[in-house]
């Protein structure tokens, strides 16, 4: 019977995933603060700093990158960190705590579908927020379109994969929704510092720079900055992002509980 039934279920799963992603997207925009934080804050940063005279000139303190491009790169890092370390674990923690995942277990569809929908949503939000940032920045605020576009796309995708995996891991190990968001926040601020969001990594000591290289957000921001200026991501940054994505996702998959 199960052999007979399974193709039917399999055929229905993509439809369920699509429907759930649509619903989760609608719910995402019903929380007014969240889309504003993810989609608008980075753009406002670029707009604000872009209006400072002389900020668009290449700076020796930023390895030759202009201030506005540096700010735009930070914008991408903020999007990755907010979605991966805050929104994803908090949402999943809440869904587990409220029994939303438990209720899905009682249907022919697995609660994994909701996880998939959330990942598609936050992945999509990353792409939209990044495009918005590049578009607005290049249309009049002194930010060039990333000079190595393919490398830039690779950096954003791998960065998102790494940060979202870490977010999944946080949701998997935290016992409650509050725990999820607390752990997420505890990682969030050191990550932002180590990545060089608060002060450029050029001001770091060599040791701190090495540490920054192996953090997911540090590797992502470095790769985004490199590709913006036209080079390819450094292999160590690629390896760091791929490593975090794989290891965190694997551990999360093994430890995640539906209830």
């Amino acid at each position: 019977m199960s052999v007979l039934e399974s193709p039917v279920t399999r055929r229905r799963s993509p439809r369920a995933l699509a429907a759930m992603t649509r619903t989760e997207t609608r719910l995402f925009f019903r929380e007014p603060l969240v889309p504003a934080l993810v989609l608008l804050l980075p753009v406002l940063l670029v707009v604000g700093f872009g209006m400072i005279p002389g900020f668009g000139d290449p700076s020796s303190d930023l390895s030759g990158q202009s201030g506005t491009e540096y700010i735009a790169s930070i914008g991408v890092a903020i999007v990755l960190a907010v979605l991966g370390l805050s929104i994803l674990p908090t949402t999943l923690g809440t869904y587990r705590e409220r029994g939303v995942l438990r209720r899905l277990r009682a249907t022919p569809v697995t609660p994994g579908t909701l996880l998939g929908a959330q990942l598609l949503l936050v992945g999509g939000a990353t792409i939209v927020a990044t495009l918005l940032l590049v578009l607005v920045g290049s249309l009049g605020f002194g930010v060039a379109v990333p000079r190595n576009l393919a490398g830039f796309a690779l950096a954003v995708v791998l960065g998102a994969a790494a940060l979202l995996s870490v977010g999944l891991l946080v949701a998997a190990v935290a016992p409650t929704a509050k725990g999820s968001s607390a752990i997420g926040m505890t990682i969030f601020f050191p990550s932002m510092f180590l990545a060089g969001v608060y002060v450029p990594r050029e001001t770091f000591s060599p040791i701190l720079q090495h540490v920054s290289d192996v953090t997911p957000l540090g590797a992502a921001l470095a790769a985004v900055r490199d590709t913006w200026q036209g080079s390819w991501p450094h292999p160590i940054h690629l390896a760091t992002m791929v490593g975090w994505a794989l290891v965190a996702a694997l551990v999360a998959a093994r430890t995640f509980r539906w209830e």
Partner: protein
Amino acid sequence: MAVIEVHELHKRYGETVALDGVSFDVRAGEVFGLLGPNGAGKTTTVEILEGLRTPDSGTVRVLGLDPVRSGPALRERVGVQLQQAQLQEKIRVGEALELYAGFYRNPRPVDELLDEWGLAAKRNTPFKKLSGGQQQRLFLALALLGRPELVFFDEITTGLDPAARRQTWDLVRRIRDSGVTVVLVSHLMDEVEELCDRVAILDRGRIVALDTPTALIAGSGNEQRMRFRPVGAISAGLIEDVPGVTAVTRSGSQVIVTGAGDFATGVTGALARAQVLVADLRLEQRTLDDAFVALTGRSFEDTDETTHDEKELEAAR
């Protein structure tokens, strides 16, 4: 025909024995009750039937299928209302039903369910703005969305006010009348007495009795109590000598008579002959509470201490 067959289920969580040899059948079209105090093993039993938990040993067939191996196929045909499950705070009633409808092969039309469960006016209301009763009705509608042959209702009236409970009971009867087999988990005696065709009483992981509510009550011993307040004085010997009376006690102005058989008729007859007027005459009906005491030697309320066992169980899971 048996819709559910359960044979010798055993389940432990660490040192705690949750189920200790549970066996029963559920027949097509009946409302079957699982009654017992917290921690008795009701929810564990139901979760095994739903395929959400695996027993340590024993066999389970639901609609002829193994719930663990045929989970998705089974969940297509079984509706579930879970204890402690909620939906996304901002999802609207209509959205939730439409979303869940996509999970089933042949779902009921959403509009039909909205009308049936009195939710049509709430179609655009977010989940968290619904009252407890409305949330409960939404979960019932969700449970019936896939045209199930069998539904599980776990503590269906928890947190509802008395009027909403009555309403929910009517809805359960409607579901039964439409030919769906219902398994009702409850720790409320009156609910089970009101709704169930047959009841299994669970205590400490074992089934201590399984019968119709009427038979369980009748089997709980034949002593009954009668209370009244005499207007004026009565002599002690007047009632004590009535056949069937075993004890007469006084509590303030009230007289409490305990007896067996048809003693009540004898007592009222004796009072009438002695021309004693009585007020507030009450014959206390035996309930499943009495059956539970008779079966386990403990009253249902006494078992509330087991609540912390339930928490330990949760922790052990």
